[in-house]
């Protein structure tokens, strides 16, 4: 054990001795890991956000289709759906999007009767009157308003309407409420000019989750102009979109990876004359090949693990404290209309382990292999230098 500790000490002092070269490698390596980890953290966090979002989502959402597009659905469709065996409840939902030209942001506007599952107010209460609203923290931030203030937005008749803010939201996921404006259902219908017999879509709850696909098929049969979307389909879509985007990002990022590989390869094949001489000296004065490999292992491990740790921490800070400002437009989409939101910290340790394996191990190997080549040669050469 003593022997290993001494070799580790020597390895660390060797790294310090070649500080400029190693510092340069450390910086490039850390930056590479940071980018890679940022993509993984961001993708995972977004998927996690999406799954939080869908925790309280209905088992099925039924949309009316017209000319291949989503249209307003007749409210009486809810009764037809409720008659299908296995359906617990079918409720028409009224919601829409509002583009706020003032802040160049899109808000989601939702109409409610009483409570709303999955949402918790951080301050105040839900609207109970047509002149009231509750807003998400993102809306509050971009409009610089809070409980007791007024939110003025322009309705479908191009008339500005002032709403008293009765509450601001908090939720397990910011993604759910950040851009939300909640009105009473009647006021929302007036605001958007929705006909009284129409809703945006219908939320369906079923008794047995395993029957969702069967019920969806039955809805399609009974109401052929509708499109039932299951919760699982939405989850799969989120996964596919975020995986596709992170994959695309990884492809773009691959140039950085390739640059790093070239650096590692250069290091691997380009063991300097000075390093070769040092290996020769160590062998001549009694170091075994295995001692030199251990020395190079510690050097590679110290450098790559430090980079990995720093890169991962930097990625965590970048993604969860600075909302992944470098990557978010690519992964979340390029729209500038959605308000910014802060991601809930969430890390997949399996991904971290795989990333560690794919970055640390090749680097250590690239450090050891050329040293091994130098170490297996007879130390006699050192006598001639």
């Amino acid at each position: 054990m003593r022997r290993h500790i001494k070799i580790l000490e020597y390895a660390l002092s060797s790294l310090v001795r070649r500080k400029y070269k190693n510092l340069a490698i450390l910086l490039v390596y850390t930056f590479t890991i940071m980018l890679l980890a940022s993509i993984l953290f961001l993708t995972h966090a977004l998927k996690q956000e999406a799954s939080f979002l869908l925790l309280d989502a209905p088992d099925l959402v039924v949309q009316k289709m017209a000319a291949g597009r989503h249209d307003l659905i007749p409210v009486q469709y809810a009764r037809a759906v409720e008659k299908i065996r296995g359906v617990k409840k079918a409720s028409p939902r009224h919601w829409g999007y509002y583009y706020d030209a003032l802040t160049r942001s899109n808000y989601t506007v939702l109409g409610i009767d009483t409570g709303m599952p999955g949402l918790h107010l951080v301050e105040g209460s839900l609207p109970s009157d047509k002149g009231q609203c509750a807003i998400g923290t993102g809306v509050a931030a971009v409009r610089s308003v809070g409980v007791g203030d007024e939110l003025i937005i322009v309705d479908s008749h191009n008339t500005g309407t002032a709403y008293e803010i009765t509450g601001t939201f908090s939720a397990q996921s910011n993604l759910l409420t950040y851009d939300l404006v909640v009105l009473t259902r009647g006021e929302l219908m007036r605001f958007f000019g929705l006909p009284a017999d129409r809703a945006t879509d219908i939320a369906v709850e079923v008794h047995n989750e395993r029957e969702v696909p069967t019920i969806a098929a039955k809805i399609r049969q009974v109401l052929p102009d509708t499109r039932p979307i299951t919760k699982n389909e939405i989850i799969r879509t989120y996964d596919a979109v975020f995986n596709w985007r992170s994959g695309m990002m990884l492809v773009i990022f691959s140039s950085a990876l390739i640059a790093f590989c070239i650096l590692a390869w250069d290091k691997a094949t380009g063991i300097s004359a000075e390093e070769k001489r040092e290996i020769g000296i160590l062998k001549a004065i009694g170091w075994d090949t295995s001692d030199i490999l251990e020395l190079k292992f510690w050097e590679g491990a110290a450098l790559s693990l430090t980079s990995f740790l720093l890169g991962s921490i930097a990625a965590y800070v970048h993604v969860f404290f600075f909302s992944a400002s470098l990557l978010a437009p690519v992964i979340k989409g390029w729209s500038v209309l959605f308000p910014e939101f802060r991601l809930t910290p969430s890390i997949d340790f399996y991904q971290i382990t795989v990333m560690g394996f794919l970055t640390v191990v090749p680097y250590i190997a690239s450090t050891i292999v050329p040293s091994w080549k130098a170490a297996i040669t007879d130390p006699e050469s050192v006598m001639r230098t």
Partner: protein
Amino acid sequence: MEHLIHTEEITKIYNPRKPDEMRALEGVSIQINRGEVVALKGPSGSGKTTLLSLIGCMGRPTSGRIVVEGRDVAKLPERFLTAIRRSTFGFIFQQFNLLRDVSVIDNVLLPLYPVDIDVPAMQQRADRLLDTLGIGAKRHLKVKQLSGGEQQRVAIARALINKPTVIIADEPTAHLDRQLATDLLAILEQLNREGKTIVIATHDPLVHEHPFITKTIGMRNGRIEGVVQR
């Protein structure tokens, strides 16, 4: 005196069967007894350094036998050669072969890093050696800050840190002025008095004509030209 090291008809060929093949040694047989001070004498290219490196288990002969303390080392696996090199030999190289950016004390301690010995004992041994050689005050300086003579002493301290039986020195006076060379020979003489066997490759008359040399082996073109026992 018993034979500490002997070689039997050793040959060393570099790059065999290639256009740049070079026969460095040809049928060399020598004996080195315990406690002797042997000078390998000859011009550049005569094979002195090659013979030293083979005796010191740093390389293997192309043919022939090398016996060190009763063991034929010519065909031993690498790890056994390392163990013998570590326990039996201390090397003083022509160019010192010190790590210039490393402190004096750490250079001296280098051979002990892969040895299972505790750090305070290592430090104590190195400090004693550096004090004996008169460079104890400079133990924390980097080697590149030392003069040539001081670097030579660091190399000697490093050669002695493992308490070797045999000291192998390759042209130890090549980069020293006359005074420093005389000082070095005094140190080697003292070490010999303490029981070390010393093998020196040199073409410096100051060394091979020194009274403490007990045997001079003349070499030319990779062969033994003559042996003079004093």
